[in-house]
Structure formats: C-alpha cells, structure tokens
C-alpha cells in the first residue's frame, strides 16, 4: 500500500464499513489509455477491412464505419462495467473498480450516467482538437464555440485533480467513485514463530509503544530479507533496546528478539484493548486519556 494512499470507507447494506483506497490518478489515466487503445485499434482494423471492401460497397462502408465508431465508444465502457462488475479491460489491468459511493449495488443507471459523460470528457475534446486545423471554412460562431468548448472540456478533464474524492464529472453524476481493488494475501501470523518465546518482557518495557508502532514493526518483519531490510532491522533493534533499557545488549539475537518483542507487544496491547484501553501510538499516554480510562487515578 502506497504511503500517500487516500482512504475512504463504503458502508455495506449489512452496516459494516469496508475500507477502500481511492484509485491513483496515474492508474486511472493508464486504464483509460488502455481502453482507448482497444477501441481505436478495433476501429482501425474494421476501417482497413471496410476500405478493402469499399470498392464494392461504396459509401455504405463509410456509414457502417461511423455507426460502429459510435457504438464502440460509450457502450464499450458500459458493457464491460455492467458485465465485469465495475471493471473495463483497462481497469482490470490496473486493478481498479467502480463502486457506489453510498455502498449500494452498482446500478445500471449509474454505469450509464458515468459513461455518457465520457463523451464530453474524452471524445469531444479529441474530436475538437482533430477538427481544429481546417478552420478556413468554419464560421465565426463555430470558432468561438470551439474555443469556449475547449475551455469547458479542459475543466471537465482535469476535474479529478481538484476534489478530494478524485471524482470525474461522470462520477459526481452517477454517485460512484473509482477504487483500487487488489487482492491481499493472508500471511502467517508472526506470533506463531517459535523464536517469539525466547525473551520475556516486563509491563514497563511493553508500555512504551502503541498500535501504530506495533504495525510498523509488523511491516518490517514481513519485508523480504534484503540487505536494506537487515540494516533497518538492526537500526530498529538498537532503538528498541535503548527505549526499553534492555540490560544484556551484547547477547541479544537480533531477528529472534524483534519477533519476540512483536509477539509480546501485540499480546500486551490486545489484552489492554479487550479491557477498553486502546493505545493508538506511543504519544497516547494514559494521563492524557484520563476521562477514557476508568482505572486511572
């Protein structure tokens, strides 16, 4: 999970909030690009086929081409978002998904709404930019309209950059947002490691950290064993030893000690949490939470 992840939560009909991570701008642009490449690629193939056939079929080929390009654009996105539960080929590749902001089922009308506006956000600017060069024959009103439209369209296209939920106009209208949807594997529980029983800690030694520090330690212990990980671990070990005033520093077996401290700290914090005392991080001291802690003097 990236450190700059933007987190939101979706309330399911069962009343359980599920945390989601908003999709990154780059990933969304990438997904769009992939989808557009598929559409344009298909159109080019069809165009070539019809150009070959055009000698026979005449202008009907052009007509078919136009109709097809129309039916490939918005309906392409709608079809896949309906069929693949909020994903298009591009979104699947970048592990993104469209979700209802209020947590209900993704309605077909939401899918329609968010994709109809695509016509304005993507296809109109493209067409306008492509058609601009032939200005000779275009009337003054048209030119003005084109420029004004271009400004509007720029606003539409950049919309996700300017709101905290990263919504395009289509998302606003449809009541959806785009989230990351990446499976997380269930890893081994670190407290089951036999090494975690080699050391014993006093209550004072476990009282120096909170949940945030515990989970940073967990992340470190789960990292692949590279040179930098080893160095970070050594560094973290030194700081923990300092902090808890461990007497016999030379005899400590680094990896086993970290594992043992993790297990003990987790047991300690979970035990305290069961008694209604959730310690968020190391700055979260009992005195400051006097009101919340019934056992405080």
């Amino acid at each position, binding site marked *: 999970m990236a450190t700059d992840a933007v987190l939101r939560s979706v309330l399911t009909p069962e009343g359980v909030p599920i*945390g989601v991570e908003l999709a990154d701008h780059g990933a969304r642009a990438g997904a769009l690009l992939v989808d557009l490449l598929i559409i344009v690629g298909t159109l080019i193939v069809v165009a070539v086929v019809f150009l070959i056939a055009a000698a026979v079929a005449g202008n009907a080929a052009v007509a078919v081409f136009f109709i097809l390009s129309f039916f490939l654009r918005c309906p392409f996105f709608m079809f896949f978002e309906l069929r693949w539960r909020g994903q298009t080929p591009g979104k699947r590749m970048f592990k993104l998904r469209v979700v209802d902001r209020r947590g209900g089922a993704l309605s077909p009308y939401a*899918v329609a709404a968010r994709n109809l506006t695509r016509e304005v956000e993507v296809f109109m600017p493209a067409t306008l930019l492509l058609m601009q060069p032939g200005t000779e024959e275009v009337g003054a009103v048209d030119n003005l309209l084109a420029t004004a439209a271009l400004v509007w369209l720029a606003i539409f296209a950049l919309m996700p950059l300017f709101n905290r939920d990263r919504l395009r106009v289509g998302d606003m209208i449809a009541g959806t947002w785009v989230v990351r949807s990446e499976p997380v594997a269930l890893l081994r529980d670190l407290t089951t490691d036999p090494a975690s029983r080699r050391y014993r800690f006093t209550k004072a030694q476990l009282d120096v950290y909170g949940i945030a520090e515990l989970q940073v330690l967990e992340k470190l212990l789960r990292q692949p064993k590279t040179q930098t990980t080893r160095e970070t671990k050594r560094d973290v070990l030194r700081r923990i030893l300092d902090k808890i005033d461990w007497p016999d520093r030379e005899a400590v077996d680094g990896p086993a000690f970290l594992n043992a401290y993790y297990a003990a700290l*987790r047991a300690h914090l979970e035990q305290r949490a069961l008694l209604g005392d959730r310690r968020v991080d190391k700055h979260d001291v009992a005195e400051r939470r006097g009101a919340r802690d019934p056992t405080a003097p």
Partner: protein
Amino acid sequence: MSEDLLKSFRFRIEREAKWRELEALIRRAEEDGLRSLGADELLRAPGLYRACMSSLSVARSISFDANLCAYLESLSLRAYFVVYGVRAGFGQLLAGFFRRDFPRAVRRTGWATALSALLLLGGAATGWTVTTQEPAWFEAFVDPAMAQGRTPDATREELEAAIFRRPGAADQLTAFATFLFQHNARVGMLCFALGAVFGVPVVLLLFYNGLGLGAICAVFAGQGLTVDFLAWLAIHGTTELTAIALCGGAGFHLAGAMINPGRRTRLAALRDTGRTVATLVVGAVVMLFMAALLEGLGRQLVTDTSLRLGIGAAMLVLWGVYFVLAGRLGGEGTRQHGD
C-alpha cells in the same frame, strides 16, 4: 501451550477455513463469472460473505495484526462486489428500461423537457426569420458540412433534388444520415453533460441548433418548397427533435439540481438526479437511432410528401402516447431513483 496463544490468533484459527473457502469461491466468480459456481456453492456464498463481514468487524476490534485486517478487508470488498454486482441479465435490463424506467423518467422531467423544446423551436423561428430577411446570416448558422449545397444560392431544382432524391442515389445519404445521427446524439449527450454546469451551455446549444434548422427551413421556403421540406424533415424529425428536446430537458433537470439543491449538498443533488437523467439520455439515444433509420431508409423509400407528413405525425403521436401511458401500471418500480 494453547493458553499461550493470543486471543486474536485463536480467532483466526477458528475462522480461517471459512475465509479460504470464500476466497476460492470469489476467485472463481471473478475469473469465470458467477455461472461457473455450482448450485450448492451459490447457496453457501451469502452465508460465507456474512461470516466474513462479521469476522472483519471482530478483527478490527480485537486483532492488531495489520495483514489479517487488510486481508479481511480486501476479501470482504471482493465478496461485496460479487454479491452486490449488477445482477439482472441484459434482456431483463432492457425490458425494464423500456417498459417502465424510460417513460417514467420522461414524465418526471416534463417541465424541463418543455423548456428545452421551447428553446429549440424559438431558435428555429429566429433562424427562419433572420435568414429570410438577410440570407448572409445563413453561413453563420449552418455548418457547411451540414448544409451540403442547400444554401440560399441554390436553385429550386437543386433543392427539389435534395428533397426527392431517388433510392438509387441512397449511398450518399446513408452516410449523411449516420453522420447526422452521430452529430445529434452528441448534441444530446452534450446537453446532458453540460447541464451539470448550471445549464447555461445547454441554452446556447439548443438555441444554436434551432437556428441552423430554421435557417435551412428559410432557404427552402424562399423557393416555395415549405411544405415539401417540412414533410422531408418530419418523417424522421419528429422523433429526432423530440429526442434532442429530451436531452436538453435532462440537462435542465441536472442544472435545476445544481442551482437549487434544497437541503442536500450540491454533490448529493447531482447524484440523486444523475441517474434519472442518464435514463433519459440513453432512451433519447435509442430514439435518435430510430430517427436515423427513418431518415436513412424510410425517407429514401417514401418520396410522397403527404405520406412523409403522415409518418412523421404518426411517430409523434406514438411517442406522446408512450410517454404518457407506459409504465403507469405494473406496481412499484424496483429500480432506485434518487428523486
């Protein structure tokens, strides 16, 4: 030894088998679709899903194993997508759309649609009047690509030829029809999308398209072909202009939500009206497609003025009856609409 285990770890041991089972189900549903699951698996899925949700709630409060919580979170999310995905089949969706949702959406936005029709007609009237008095305005109102030689300089014979072209020369017109379909469908979608910015561009767009229409009318009227031209237009135009008016109405409906959101936030208002409005536009695009068919085929085959007028009028009545009556019976709609 066992009392040495953490409570959160014991919790995990107890429930893990169910999570794994759900995970396997979900993976298959994601890769091969729901149809790949057997009947008994489908029967077990909701129970497993709810068990997973409850595990997530418990894990959040008793376990500080970040990986475990992340795993349950992602599993719940994936299961949620499978359980609450779009379920209806395509045919079912279509039937519900035309029998109920589309006409209802039209009725719900009646006033906005009337406003947009008024603007379109007002534009046409203006275009007609101005071009009749000063033909030079024609070029400002009509894109040359659209005009295709139907300019104020054209002779009566040329204009007549444009109206009563024989089926033999249909190729050119088929291409034109599809172009027009594209153009109009885009105008429609633009109206819808621009509604979100308070509706001002919708007014301009509707009026501008009305102007072009009126200007072409004036050109034909100048050569005494008024009725023939109206018939040529009406055969598909009643369907097409109704569709554009609907799109404009959709835009105004959205704009209304933006201007006067009531007690909701603007974002919530937009979301609530957005779905109704999308229904309208999808329906309008279908109408535009029918109009293009009428234009591309019907008009080439039917060259008689009164017959063309008759078909145009019949379509108008048909749409009117459909919008007023369809979907009134048949109980409560199951689809959710915000407003």
